[in-house]
Structures are given as structure tokens and as C-alpha cells.
């Protein structure tokens, strides 16, 4: 019956242990939540990145957009060779303004630039452009 002598202490101790257990439970849940959130966040970022990358680099409209490089400059100045998902284009005698327009257009296209050459001949520019997508 020794427990009875110390039953007050035992009761307080039990309540204290319960409080510690509650505190440990709460902390473990916080850690688990942080871990889960971190995992979920990285998954979410990864999925968003994949979606964004696919949207840019697997855009089905890229072929149509590239065709504008042909019509952007007067036809007489353009030599156009496009096969499958590869393009080789030559531009001769471009004005500075045409060159500017062409380069800006190329920069805004989601294509892999394989070659871009600009040469000044007298007052005009010749451009060689090779890309794939």
C-alpha cells in the first residue's frame, strides 16, 4: 500500500507525464507536418516546373510560329529550308530594322538555336539561322 502514501505525488506525476506526452505528440506532429509540407512543396514545384518546361519546349504551335520567320522578311531576301523539326534559313541584304525585327522574333521562339550568324556587308546584313525544336 506504499502507493497510497504517495498517491498525491503519483497523481501529479501522472498528469505531468501526460503533459509531456502531449507536448511530445504535438512536436512530433509539427515535425511530421513540416516534413510533409516540405515534401509536398518540392513535389508541387517539380510538377509546376515540368508543366512549365513542357509548355515552353513541347509547344505544338512552335512549327506555326517558326513559319512567321519566313514571312517577316520580304521573300526575295529569304532562303528557307525546313525539314521535320529542323530549320535552316538564310537572309540576305537585311536592313538594320529588319535585322532587329528578325533577331527579336528568333529570341522569342522556343527553339534550340544551333547557329546564328550575322555579317555586315556594306550597309546591309546577311543572316544564317539554324535551329531545331
Amino acid at each position: 500500500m506504499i502507493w497510497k502514501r504517495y498517491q498525491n505525488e503519483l497523481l501529479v506525476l501522472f498528469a505531468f507525464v501526460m503533459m509531456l506526452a502531449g507536448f511530445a505528440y504535438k512536436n512530433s506532429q509539427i515535425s511530421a507536418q513540416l516534413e510533409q509540407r516540405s515534401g509536398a512543396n518540392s513535389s508541387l514545384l517539380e510538377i509546376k516546373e515540368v508543366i512549365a518546361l513542357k509548355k515552353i519546349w513541347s509547344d505544338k504551335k512552335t512549327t506555326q510560329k517558326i513559319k512567321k520567320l519566313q514571312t517577316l522578311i520580304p521573300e526575295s531576301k529569304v532562303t528557307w529550308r525546313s525539314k521535320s523539326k529542323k530549320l535552316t534559313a538564310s537572309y540576305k541584304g537585311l536592313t538594320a530594322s529588319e535585322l532587329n525585327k528578325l533577331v527579336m522574333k528568333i529570341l522569342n521562339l522556343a527553339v534550340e538555336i544551333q547557329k546564328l550568324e550575322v555579317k555586315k556587308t556594306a550597309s546591309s546584313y546577311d543572316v544564317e539561322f539554324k535551329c531545331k525544336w
Partner: protein
Amino acid sequence: MGNNKELLLVYSGMQHVALSEDVNVMLTPQLYTLKKEALPLSYAYQAKKIAPSLFEGLLEEGRQYDYMVWKEKEEWVFLAYDMQRITAFLEEKGFALEHVSKLFFAQQVVDLFDTPLALGAESALVSLDRSVVLVPRSALREEEDISWSIDKRFTPKKGVLLQGAYGSLFSVKQTVILAAAFGLFALMFFVEGWRYSHDAKAGDSQIEELLEAYPSLSSKYTRDSIISKYRALDTMERKKRETIKALSTMIFKGVTLTSFAMDEKSFNVAFSCKDDRVTKRLKVLAKENRFNISAVPGSNDLTIEGSL
């Protein structure tokens, strides 16, 4: 239940006891002080508050007293007792304190002492003017009935718990307060923990929405494969475009682009500058953009080369 236990009357001349099971104890007036007062009070807690002042001058100074209060008809009955003295007395009489459940006072059952109760050969307990008092046996009339023992009938409803009074660190009140506080904290922590565990599950909904729209991305392998395919391409193409944009900012009045070549690994640009001042400014811009500059000997022209 306290009432199921044996009730022992304790008094100074009693024999030593050896307890093997829990008992209740009834104290005689030798171990408490009684006072009755007709006071205009409604509640026992009010009476208990003023109890110490009522006993002023009646009790031994320097000792710690507790009080029990109840109302009898128009009067309030006050009992003052010294728990330390009582426990010391019980131990002296051989009581193992852990076997003592509750303490009662003879005054609580004053009605049952109409018949005197003998306490050994010398004295007796008797009710006089509704107060239980100790009288010499010789003061009793010879023809008067005397009872020799008490039984469970004498156990009042309300008693004093002895736990906490014998060597215990905490009193009952302290125990209740501490246990309640710790219990409350425990409850709060468990509830908070439970809420955190539920909040964590709610965070996945955005992923689920995206995966519903793009079911093919539910596989980590597929995602890794797409990322490895496009991330390097994206980085490289962005670098090419940033380089071209940086080079375009270097074309200003007095600077002419004479040639530019870029392939998948490197680039090369040639600028023709009108004069030294323009060349210097172009060099500054090239340095700001961390490009490698080389001057064309015998002219103001500059060549910039770099890898991607």
C-alpha cells in the same frame, strides 16, 4: 466508499493498534476545538473564511490549524484541528497513516452520543447541550446506560482526507490544482497535435488538382525524365538569349556590329567603333557583362568572345 470501512475512535488513553487494512478514524474533543456561533451567513465558505478570527486566543499559537464548518439549525459549528498534532498522535498510537482513509469528529454525530460512550475506565464521551464533551465516568449517573464501542453507524457523510497530510509533498488542494493544470496543458497539446496532423493532410490538395489535370505526371520517373530532358535545354537556350540581349545593349551611337556568330557552345562578336571614346565605353560595358574583349590592332574595333 469511506463508510464501508471500520471506524475507530481515538483518544489519549487508548491502547496501541496494529492495522492491516484501511480504517476511518473518529477524533474525540481532545484533538479538536469546538465553537458555536449564530452568524448571519448563508454559505459554508463564508463561515470558513472567518473561522480563524473566531478562534483567536483559543488556540495554541505558532501551530497550523485547519477548520471544518457546518450549520446546525440557527448556529454555525466551527471545529479547529491541528493536522500535524493529529497525525503525530495517530502514529504514536501505532496507526500506519497510509491505512487511515478519513478523519471524522465526534461532534459531527452529536445526536448519537445521547447515550454516553465509555472511553476506558476513567472517562466517557457524552452529548451536553448538543456538544460532545469528555467527562469523568464518575460524573455519570450509575443507572445511566453506557455504550462501550462505536460502529459504522457513527460514520458521518463528510470527513477529512488524511492523504497529503503525512509526509506528502503536496496537499490535496495542491494536487488537484497541479494535476488540473498539467491535465489542461496535456489536453491542449494533444488537441494542437491533432490539428497539426489534420492540417498536414489538407496541404496535398493542390498537388492532387494538378495531377488530375496532368495524369501522366503522377509518376516521379516520368517527371524526372522530362526534367532531365528539358532543364538543360532551357538553361542553355536562356543563356544564349541573355547573351544576345546583353550584346544588343552594347550597340549605341558610334558602334557598328560588323559580325556576330553563335553556335551551341560559343559566340563571337566584332564591333567597329567610331573613335577611342566609344571604344573605351564599349570596353566598360563588356566588362560589366563579364565578356572577354580583345582589341583589333591598328583600329578602334573590338572583338568579344565567350563560351556558353
